[in-house]
């Protein structure tokens, strides 16, 4: 009978049917917390009354370490924040350094960066999709999604030599030009993508069980989302059309034609639909960029030890998980005075308590998956 009350009624009712509250620890080792996240749940039966998240299990003291390295030496460390979307981490780091030092990036390098960033977005969303369905019990789509993501990882391996943490984007451009082999692979991937997306649609979007698990679960309203500083697909699911690629453009995004999907409902299903739609839009951008790739340098001439003039900068990009920002303080020497990573996943988790109160524990897993966190970025 408890499940017939609304979520807020459940959260605020003192006790339902003379039951007691207890504390359940979803500890750092757990199959579905997407990393080492510790959640302390205060539950009444199956219903969560309050969540207290504990972070820091993957904290690697990025800010302190990078104060002792030059700007260029610090870029590989940014790979390790959101290790499933490593290219976009590099992108924001290079953007910050370029803004600080006033380096101008050649057009070809910008186009390559856009292609790579959008491919990385597709790969990250595919992986999110797989893990979320895996958490809900569907093992098959997880395998398919990871298999399709492998093609992108192969492309990145061809370009940068690594499969997870690429360190491909450097201040001033990219590490290596797109060669014909990688270009062909990218083209093939983009051509095959609609077919795969149709397969996923058939398997997932018509599946009654998934719809019932996700629809109306974890509803977040737009005003609360802005107050909590949410960004990325979670914000767009609540109805706010906010995407840094369009609202505060960086790189050459204004030259491409793409749409920002938004939904009004704010539930897990909306976030799901938005990410699937974003995969399609990213493919669109990649196709346009490939067709109009200009000739030129792939990297600007950058001194070995960059000495930017004194000052601060805040650079942010639209990473697959939200707004990934970097606040960099320079004191005129070769090493930064202070570097801070504004993590999208950490800020998105601020609203977890609000949207999960009153939901059963099984819904918590669905919500946590749909917010899409990576603990590397949360803990830095």
């Amino acid at each position, binding site marked *: 009978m408890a499940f017939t009350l609304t*979520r807020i009624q459940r959260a605020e009712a003192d006790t339902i049917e003379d039951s007691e509250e207890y504390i*359940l620890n979803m500890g750092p080792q757990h199959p579905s917390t997407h990393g080492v996240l510790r959640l302390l749940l205060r539950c009444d039966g199956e219903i969560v009354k309050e969540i207290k998240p504990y972070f820091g299990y993957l904290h690697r003291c990025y800010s302190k370490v990078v104060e002792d390295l030059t700007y260029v030496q610090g870029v590989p460390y940014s790979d390790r924040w959101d290790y499933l979307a490593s290219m976009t981490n590099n992108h924001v780091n290079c953007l910050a350094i370029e803004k600080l030092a006033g380096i101008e990036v050649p057009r070809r390098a910008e186009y390559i960066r856009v292609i790579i960033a959008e491919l990385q977005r597709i790969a990250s969303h595919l992986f999110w999709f797989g893990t979320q369905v895996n958490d809900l*019990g569907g093992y098959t789509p997880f395998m398919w999604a990871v298999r399709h993501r492998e093609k992108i990882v192969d492309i990145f391996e061809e370009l940068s030599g690594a499969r997870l943490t690429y360190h491909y984007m450097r201040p001033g451009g990219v590490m290596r030009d797109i060669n014909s082999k990688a270009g062909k692979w990218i083209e093939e991937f983009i051509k095959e993508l609609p077919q795969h997306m149709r397969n996923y649609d058939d398997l997932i979007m018509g599946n009654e*069980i998934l719809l019932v698990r996700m629809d109306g679960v974890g509803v977040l309203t737009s005003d609360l989302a802005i107050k909590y500083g949410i960004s990325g697909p979670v914000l767009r699911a609540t109805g706010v*059309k906010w995407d840094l690629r369009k609202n505060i453009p960086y790189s050459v995004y204004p030259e491409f034609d793409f749409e920002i999907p938004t939904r009004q409902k704010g539930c897990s299903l909306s976030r799901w639909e938005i990410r699937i739609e974003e995969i399609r839009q990213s493919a669109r951008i990649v196709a346009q960029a490939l067709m109009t790739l200009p000739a030129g340098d792939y990297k600007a001439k950058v001194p070995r030890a960059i000495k930017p003039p004194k000052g601060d900068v805040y650079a942010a990009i639209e990473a697959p998980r939200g707004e990934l920002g970097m606040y960099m303080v320079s004191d005129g020497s070769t090493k930064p005075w202070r570097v801070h990573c504004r993590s999208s996943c950490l800020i998105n988790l601020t609203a977890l308590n609000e949207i999960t109160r009153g939901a059963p524990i*099984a819904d918590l897993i669905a919500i946590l998956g749909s917010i899409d966190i990576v603990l590397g970025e949360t803990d830095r």
Partner: protein
Amino acid sequence: MFTWILRESYKIGLSPTIPAWAHDLWFVIMGLLIFAVIALPLIIAVAYLTLWERKILAWAHYRLGPNRAWGYGFLQPLLDAVKLLIKEDIVPVCVDWPVWFLAPIVAFTPMVACFLAIPMSNAFVNMKLQLPGDTEPVMHVFQVPMIAGNLNIGLLFILALSSLVVVGIFMAGWGSNNKYSLFGGMRSAAQIISYEVPVILSLLCVALLAGSLSTVDIVKAQKFIPPGEMKTYLELDRLSMSGSGFDYTKRGDYLNLDYFKNLEGDEKIIAAGKLYHRYNDYVNTQGSPRLPFIIPLFIAFIIYFIAGVAETNRSPFDLPEGESEIVAGFHTEYSGIKFGLFFLGEYGNMILISAIAVTCFLGGYLGPAIPGMSWITASTGEYIYYFFWFILKVCLLVSVMVWFRATFPRLRVDQLTDFAWKALLPISFINILIVGYMHFADWNFISIAETNWILWYDNIVRPFEYPFLRALMLLFFVPIVSDYVYRYRKVIMPRFIYAEIAFILAFMGYDIFTLWFGSKTFEIVLRCLLYAVALFLTIWMWRDVILAMRSGQQFPNLPEEEAMGMVEKVKPGPLGVQETIEIPTTSYARE
């Protein structure tokens, strides 16, 4: 060879010269042998089912499954079993040791025991024997189903034992001293108990059609007998059960208990006659459709299969052992062979559900008759043929269960129980009504108009009237408006009780009235009027609730709640209870 074994074993059993203790020992040995013959292949089958499942899942995932052990992975189950056996048996501190220790056994054993009542093959065996009472060796006919014991309550036995598995799971959840395990155990108990009811209701339809709870009878009721051969078949059946001139009083009839030896004279004859008729009253009054029951009972089959999958804690109902949420659920704290027992128990349950479904709906061991094979009788060759068909059908259903696992994500636990009580159960009830009527009408779809309506009404509808209307009120209104009931409990309960009293008085009064008058047609008409009145009362009682639901208004606060300050402050918005604010779009919005 096979007949020789049977003949010798029957001879031993039939011999009057063995002393009593040897005779009882023979019973015990035969029982143990049969158990071993069933249980050991079962365990091997369960082990290879794990391999088969991994292969199917892998192929669905576009990869290969285990293929390192012996070619296509055929040694994998053995290696897994060895691995589990040599693992360290970790006993957590503070467990409730007897409960924790016995849980895997309680979860595994009933499942094996259920297989004792499932027929895997059948044969009519002709043997030239000289039984006590024969002057010379005569050709006797015996029917030998491949079953450990042909209980005449076989189906009930299976259902009862399969319900014991939930006790084992709950013991595991409790005894583990772990919140996650307790969670898993409770969820599993709720799930299994909820899904027992649709299972039983579906199998009720099967028992209705077959006319018997004995699994062998159920399978035989699905056997197609060509029209002209029915009499021959029935005669053979009668002969094979009893044997010509078989004396029930003699010790040694393996199929009989010898309780007749204490009876004398007329009692003996009457008891023998009852037994005779039990064995021979094979055709029930209505007549079975003589088809695999999946054809007339396809809804019941679907309900049974879905509920059966839920009974075994398999996907999409495997939340109690949901790997993502509660880290393996009730078997978190088990390692080594204890975990192996749970694991095997789950897979054995899968095979059990499939076997019951095959027996009850798909025709059991029956298969199409190949040319040259007799329609009626079977012998050793056909024995193996029928066994092969049984295995094939079970494999097919088991593969469908594995296919479910590969395809569907998990349902949440309240959605599980909702599905059982709000979807499967009403459909099961309606199904029973329909099946009962059709069975009563001899499955004559066309001649419905010719049936005796009054007889139908008296036999089928009348018992259901009052419970049906009660169920109508409870099932279809209370879950939906339970919150309303809770809030208005002080107001509604009296009304409810008044309505109940009104119903009872009305029905009682009406019965007295009809007994006095006794006109049937008039009675039917008046009773239908009474239904209408009762329905109207129900709707009148819930009128304001229905109106509220239609207009979308929230529940009003009770005066005591307002006094206590437990008033809902937030008004509902378009997205539910939380407030929404429109964000003004200024001209600076870069679209």
